[in-house]
């Protein structure tokens, strides 16, 4: 004979089973922390590294002095920029990391508008690169110096744009 005297027990059993299965699922899915949206964090870390390297190079040694980056851009010292910048980017303890870059300078010409000129790069035969990030920095250009073609002969601010990637 079928009665309804065991309904509460049945419902309690089903609820307990559902609760246990859901808890086990939550506990097991917590261990995989890498979500698909985390792939951009390494790009942001590379961008921070580039920003920090440029900030270090753009800090003057004494008050109202000229920083190393300003000297290199004003006098077009591309080799010195290359040496310092790559040493800052690849300063890991194992010396295995290789970060490559391509630097361009953007400036405003009063008659022709926005212009750009290639500055320096560290590139090699590419085997397949990862995603590239861009870091920029305003650098003051004070004459006299070695102006790039198309630049005004006035004291101005130019934008140094560096593209960074890992290979």
């Amino acid at each position: 004979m079928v009665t309804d005297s065991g309904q509460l027990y049945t419902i309690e059993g089903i609820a307990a089973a559902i609760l246990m299965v859901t808890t086990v699922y939550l506990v097991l899915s917590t261990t995989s922390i890498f979500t698909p949206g985390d792939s951009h964090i390494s790009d942001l870390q590379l961008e921070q590294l580039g920003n920090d390297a440029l900030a270090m190079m753009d800090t003057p040694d004494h008050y109202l002095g000229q920083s190393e980056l300003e000297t290199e851009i004003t006098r077009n010292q591309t080799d010195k920029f290359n040496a310092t910048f790559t040493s800052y980017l690849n300063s890991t303890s194992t010396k295995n990391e290789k970060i490559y870059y391509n630097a361009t300078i953007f400036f405003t010409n009063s008659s022709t508008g926005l212009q750009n000129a290639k500055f320096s790069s560290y590139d090699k035969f590419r085997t397949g690169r990862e995603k590239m990030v861009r870091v920029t920095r305003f650098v003051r250009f004070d004459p006299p110096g070695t102006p790039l073609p198309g630049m005004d002969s006035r004291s101005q601010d130019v934008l140094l744009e560096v593209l960074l990637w890992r290979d």
Partner: protein
Amino acid sequence: MSFVICSSIFFLALLINESTLVGQSTAESVLDFPKHDIQEMKVDLYRDPANFTNSSFMGDFVNLSRERRNAIVRIDNNADRVIIHYNNGVTEYNETVLY
């Protein structure tokens, strides 16, 4: 009694599971803030008070920020204060300096 303990364990497991997602989005919002853009633009501006009266120098910042950095910059030089407006679509930053 056991049902109460089960539901409390379920709640704690849910809390730990959701916490990793929360940490990622707050870290992402911190990294998205254009701290470097704003700070080093201000460093180059404030080095010399005569910069604010040089209109072609101001034009450098406005043009280069707009063309290469996707940011609208406006620098006002009033009688006793300097106002900088910065807007890159995601973050808006306004600064007033009295001197």
